[in-house]
């Protein structure tokens, strides 16, 4: 935390966007400051200079002045447009994860954060990540709306029940940084906090090495897939009663209704929890819903498994999860 005259003023800059957010902040502070000082200054001068004195009447006309009013409408408008474009551009960056980002899966519940790494490690209220690598969080809530917020990274996003939201960041400095729940979520909202531990990549590899006896996420997901009997219909060679899931992730799917959808995490989640809303041509609506049967973490594992099912010829492009 940076201090000024003993007061903390700024959180640490520990992500690739932190400096850019701060730069925008300084710009906004500067513009605001100039305007505020200008107005306060002018008011002070006026109220002193034109204070009421006996025998002295005011002389100005109060009917307005076209030019003046035009100037002080157009100048602020122009400045706000600069703010808009600058802010929007930065928002694109903060909003869109770069390709090849490392996945971490997040489940929020009252009142804790559960993190899952593709390699299988799970942690609660602590998140270990390597420095210098883009990390993409895929997040969902088990109950109410939460919000994952890391001030040092200048990023936050709501975590919704029923639908995935994502956010990404790239830590630039080793260290331990606070993470908060920023969306009010009930009694112990203020205890739904934790730490992000940013580590050197080798340390991170070591950390990954210790633990995860159940294996990587997609392996756990594969076991779940077998346990739930998914494989009886979804066969790898497309001979089952349900469509094959090999190569599904990331492809475009044409539904019975003619709608074309991108098979992303949300799509797969919806197919599992409300299968009848995503009917395919040539397949009967026979899949039961698994809503309430699989936990949010289990769903993420299944998705990791389905993501790992790449057709042989596409294997060279590989997925980051391996």
């Amino acid at each position: 935390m940076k201090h000024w005259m003993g007061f903390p003023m700024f959180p640490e800059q520990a992500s690739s966007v932190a400096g850019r957010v701060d730069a925008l902040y300084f710009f906004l502070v500067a513009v605001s400051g100039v305007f505020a000082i200008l107005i306060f200054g002018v008011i002070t001068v006026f109220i002193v200079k034109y204070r009421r004195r006996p025998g002295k009447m005011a002389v100005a006309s109060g009917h307005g002045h076209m030019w003046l009013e035009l100037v002080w409408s157009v100048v602020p408008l122009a400045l706000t447009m600069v703010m808009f474009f600058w802010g929007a551009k930065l928002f694109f960056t903060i909003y869109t994860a770069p390709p090849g980002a490392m996945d971490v899966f997040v489940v929020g519940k009252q009142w804790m954060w559960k993190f899952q790494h593709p390699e299988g490690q799970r942690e609660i209220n602590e998140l270990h990540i390597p420095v210098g690598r883009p990390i993409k969080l895929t997040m969902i809530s088990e109950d109410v709306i939460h919000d994952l917020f890391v001030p040092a990274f200048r990023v936050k996003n709501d975590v919704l029940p029923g639908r995935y939201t994502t956010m990404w960041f790239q830590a630039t400095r080793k260290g331990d940084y606070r993470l908060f729940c920023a969306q009010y979520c009930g009694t112990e909202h203020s205890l739904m906090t934790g730490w992000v531990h940013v580590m050197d990549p080798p340390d991170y590899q070591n950390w990954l090495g210790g633990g995860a006896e159940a294996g990587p996420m997609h392996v756990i997901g594969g076991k779940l897939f077998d346990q739930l009997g998914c494989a009886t219909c979804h066969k790898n060679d497309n001979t089952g009663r349900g469509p094959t899931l090999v190569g599904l992730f990331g492809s475009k799917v044409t539904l019975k209704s003619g709608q074309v959808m991108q098979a992303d995490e949300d799509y797969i989640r919806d197919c599992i929890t409300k299968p009848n809303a995503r009917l395919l041509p040539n397949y009967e609506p026979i899949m039961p819903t698994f809503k309430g049967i699989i936990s949010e973490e289990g769903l993420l594992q299944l998705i990791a498994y389905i993501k790992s099912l790449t057709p042989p010829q596409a294997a060279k492009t590989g997925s980051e999860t391996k």
Partner: protein
Amino acid sequence: MLRHQFEDASQQRESAVLGMWVFLATEIMFFGGLFAAYTAYRYQYGAGFAAASHHLNMLLGAANTAVLLTSSLTMALAVHAAQVGKKPAHIAGLLVLTMLLGCAFLGIKAVEYHDKFVHHLVPGASFVWEGTLTRQAEMFYYLYFAMTGLHAIHMLAGVGVVLVVAILAARGRYTPQYHNPLEITGLYWHFVDIIWVFLFPLLYLIA
């Protein structure tokens, strides 16, 4: 009849009419919340909405539309009768007719509600849906009951107000010079009619 705050009768009449129109703008937004919900879910759950809509009785819906439009005519004629100075019994008669048509509408609505209740199409624990897309169908029925229910509450209020106005009309209160309560009641009645004109295609006619 002129209240102390007004200068003359025309100021009073214009204020009453403007006041009613402002109130109707409020009413539009009151229903607007539900229309917004409907639009959002119709977009997302088109298939489920279509399937659920088929279980509504389109003939009853159309009949109800006809009943309401007719009641609007009788209401407009009642206002007209007051404007041209018809006998109190004439005005009151048209208002009673309007009221009876309103009751007919509510009666048909009650039959429909009863039918949905019997077929377990009321959202909640007892909702039973034969077929896929249960959640979407339930959402449709939630909106169906919320929108038509809110509309029915407005109809009930309207019937009550028309009854009062009819009694006053029968006592000869309304003249070509003064019939503000009758006029603004008419505006309200037509407005409730218009809401139904939109509810009918939105709920009953999803292809």
